């Protein structure tokens, strides 16, 4: 005999293997369904990273629409009863479904507007799977369209260490586009064109493409001009050609290109496009302007206007009340107190709150704008 135990082991192993495959196979359809949901979820995650890098500056951190149209909107995401497509697609006579509409718009852009082509097939920076992920992210608002979510957070200071770079400024009124100016250049660079999603200039932007500090001084204006309209003509060492969109030649006027070069020529510390000299001259415009500024600068993300405490103290009933400070002391909330708190949030910290407010408004707001916000707070007493 060969030893019956050997045969028993072999039989057990083969039977065991069949059982394993059967048990595994029985759960297969559930596993595949889970994988589908799982993969869709990760598409949304990947899309979110791209959206906040490249899209939020024009379409809003909540997709509420700024320069670009609203994306977190029922008319884009929800089909009416008995319709096959959402109203906005019907209005544009779009024959495909919502995903193809979004992916088409992202890939090819909207010619004649600042929405450039983002898909690689049209000369943009993103691969088809990335465009797909962004569309998944936008469609994820469809569960509850129009609702306000967290939005894009500002950089905050922790533990008394100041943030190294300034928060990305939100878009204000765009400068005139037919007058050549460094301010227009900066507006285009950081705003609708999103150059800063790939290029660092003056310590701001993402380090994907070449750093543009001193680029004009080093290479000359002609080189920069050529590189904007024909990005692959000179490929910078260490950077893959083909990553930068080739659409700027068609989307930008000469004045706009020259303005961008003017901006790249300026040393650090150019005034933000939000505070061109002309605006500093105008006096305060009143509480209505203050309300808009409070929205645009994200004040209301932390300071409610209905008395509830979100992250900072509510503005409701703030005016004229007595404020107790962390570490003792108190003051009446008047214009001087508010001005001081906007410019130097840490100096008179109200008891019970942490110092989470950016200390950057001295740089990003004009005196007149601060007065407008104060007058807006006064109307909420």
């Amino acid at each position, binding site marked *: 005999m060969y030893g019956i135990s050997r045969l028993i082991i072999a039989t057990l192993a083969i039977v065991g293997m069949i059982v394993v495959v059967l048990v595994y196979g029985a759960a297969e359809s559930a596993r595949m369904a889970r994988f589908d*949901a799982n993969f869709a979820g990760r598409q*949304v995650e990947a899309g979110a990273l791209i959206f906040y890098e490249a899209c939020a500056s024009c379409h809003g951190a909540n997709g509420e629409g700024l320069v670009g149209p609203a994306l977190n909107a029922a008319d884009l995401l929800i089909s009416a009863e008995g319709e096959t497509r959402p109203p906005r697609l019907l209005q544009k006579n779009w024959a495909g479904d919502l995903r193809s509409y979004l992916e088409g718009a992202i890939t090819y852009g909207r010619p004649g507007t600042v929405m450039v082509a983002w898909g690689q097939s049209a000369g943009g920076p993103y691969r088809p799977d990335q465009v797909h992920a962004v569309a998944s992210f936008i469609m994820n608002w469809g569960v509850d369209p129009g609702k306000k979510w967290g939005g894009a957070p500002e950089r905050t200071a*922790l533990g008394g260490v100041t943030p190294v770079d300034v928060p990305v400024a939100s878009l204000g009124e765009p400068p005139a586009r037919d007058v050549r100016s460094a301010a227009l250049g900066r507006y285009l660079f950081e705003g609708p064109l999103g150059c800063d999603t790939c290029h660092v200039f003056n310590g701001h932007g993402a380090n994907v493409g070449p750093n543009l500090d001193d680029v004009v001084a080093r290479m000359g204006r002609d080189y920069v001009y050529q590189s904007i309209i024909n990005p692959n003509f000179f490929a910078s060492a260490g950077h893959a050609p083909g990553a930068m969109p080739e659409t700027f030649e068609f989307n930008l006027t000469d004045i706009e290109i020259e303005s961008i070069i003017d901006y790249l020529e300026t040393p650090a510390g150019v005034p933000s496009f939000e505070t061109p000299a002309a605006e500093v001259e105008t006096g305060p415009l009143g509480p209505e302007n203050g309300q808009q500024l409070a929205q645009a600068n994200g004040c209301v993300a932390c300071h409610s206007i209905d008395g509830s405490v979100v992250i900072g103290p509510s503005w409701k009933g703030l005016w004229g009340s007595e404020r107790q400070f962390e570490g003792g002391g108190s003051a009446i909330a008047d214009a001087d107190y508010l001005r001081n708190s906007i410019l130097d949030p840490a100096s008179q910290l109200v008891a019970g709150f942490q110092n989470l407010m950016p200390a950057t408004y001295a740089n990003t707001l004009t005196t007149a704008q601060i007065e407008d916000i104060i007058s807006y707070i006064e109307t909420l007493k």
Partner: protein
Amino acid sequence: MSLIQDIQGRGLRGFVADKADQTFTRVTAGIPWRDFRGMLRGDDPPRPNPRLKPHSESFWLHIKPSYYHESVTRFTHTFRLGLLSTYLFVIEIITGLLLMIWYAPTPERAYSDMVRLLSNVPMGQLMRDVHRLAAEAMVIVVVLHMFRTYLTGSYKKPRQFTWLTGVVLLAATLFLSFSGYLLPWDQLAFWAVTIGTSMAEASPTPPGAGPIGELLIGQSDWVGTAVNLLLRGSPDIGASGLLRFYLLHVFFLPLLVIVFFFVHYYKVVHFGISLPAKEEEVGQDSANRVPADRRRYYLMDIAIDEIVFLSVVTFILMAMCAFFYDAKLENIANPLKTPLHTTAPWYFFWLQGLLKVGDKVLWGLFIPAVFVGLITLVPYLDYNPSRRGKDRRVALGLGFLVASAIIVLSFMGLPLYAVESPPAEEVVQEFMPEEGVGPVREVPWAELVPGIYRTDTFEGSVPLSEFEHVFLEFKERIERDPGLQGGVGSITVEPAQPGLKRIRFQIDYFDFEGAPAQFIKDFYLHENSLYWHDFQF
């Protein structure tokens, strides 16, 4: 004699029984039913032994020897590692052919084909897991096989050439595994292969060969560039690189393995498996002269041994893949973004470790080339006729030294000893890696309660929630790090969309020069991503 006469002569019953036995004998390649029954029962073979017939009649059995020396059939003599690596290769071919049905080797399709395989093909994931695990196991088994051969001195005369073909098979196994790495076209694949092929780029140009390069590609330092170009098909890995690796993986390298396997195995059978050293005179080779009383026949004795062994191996492999092991699929390859801690496959860690020792050409190319050359030529360099341990102290010492050196170098090749990123980035990578899971993603989605969690003001609830446990680790990790002086970290969890949360890591600290620095990184987590299910793909 006609059929009718035949039936009349023996009777119908005898005729049918005869015909049945003839058919049976044809199927078993020469063993009649009576002998087959005795064979299964384990009876001693009659003389002449009918069980030897299949070894001359059938193709597959003629490859196998009809009997072995009793002493070499003990499991601990060879651990059956050669059989095991052959078997794993067969598993690779079967699962590989199945996987090829759902795969197209283009950058546009490769990754989505993987996703389709995992989401839409029943048993697709199991096939992929088996293919991957068996491949990694094959690397280990082939290396152990070689190490065993070295320790028992079996490479000595007359088996030098067997060893040499074995080294070719080892190299082919490594490159088979490596070329398969790229095919899923995910971040892991893309960057591991980018690193692997850029090692080839260090190949130096021999002195005097410069002018050839000037002529060919207009560059005097040309060998590295040419090798790289040959492998990748273009300066960077793209469509042509993927196609080349695919063809290497499914065609060229398997063919090479099959050809060299038959040469290797022919030599093994021809010379026989070497006897334990103590049963042989020094300098003798008596493996092929097996006394009749020490023979163990392949049919059915050894065959049953092998069937039992391979059944158990298959069961373990299937059970591992079904319940414990998942071949990972990372995010789609992104040539513009190198993930932190990119490494070569683990079996090339020793090469990465060598590269960290010093110069790329000397340590990355010259030393490994000398090492591989020495290993290949071991049987021709080792003049010691004895295979006994006590006579081979130097050879065995060297063997263990090289083995430990490779293990140490592999440790040095780990990402742990990689070029460190700034400390804050490392901390975030530990808790929420760019690829893979990490502790924060393992926290159930519902337990990531929105809020700002700061290390300086953190007071956990009692008992600590799963997230708070992780946060406490995060806090201790920051406080421990000498590179994060006065470091304060925060994790902000907030809803970003329906079913989507933003996890923002922020670390403010003073760097080594005392200047304030800040590191911020955002992640998004979707409810359906189910990382905490340990559901990786």
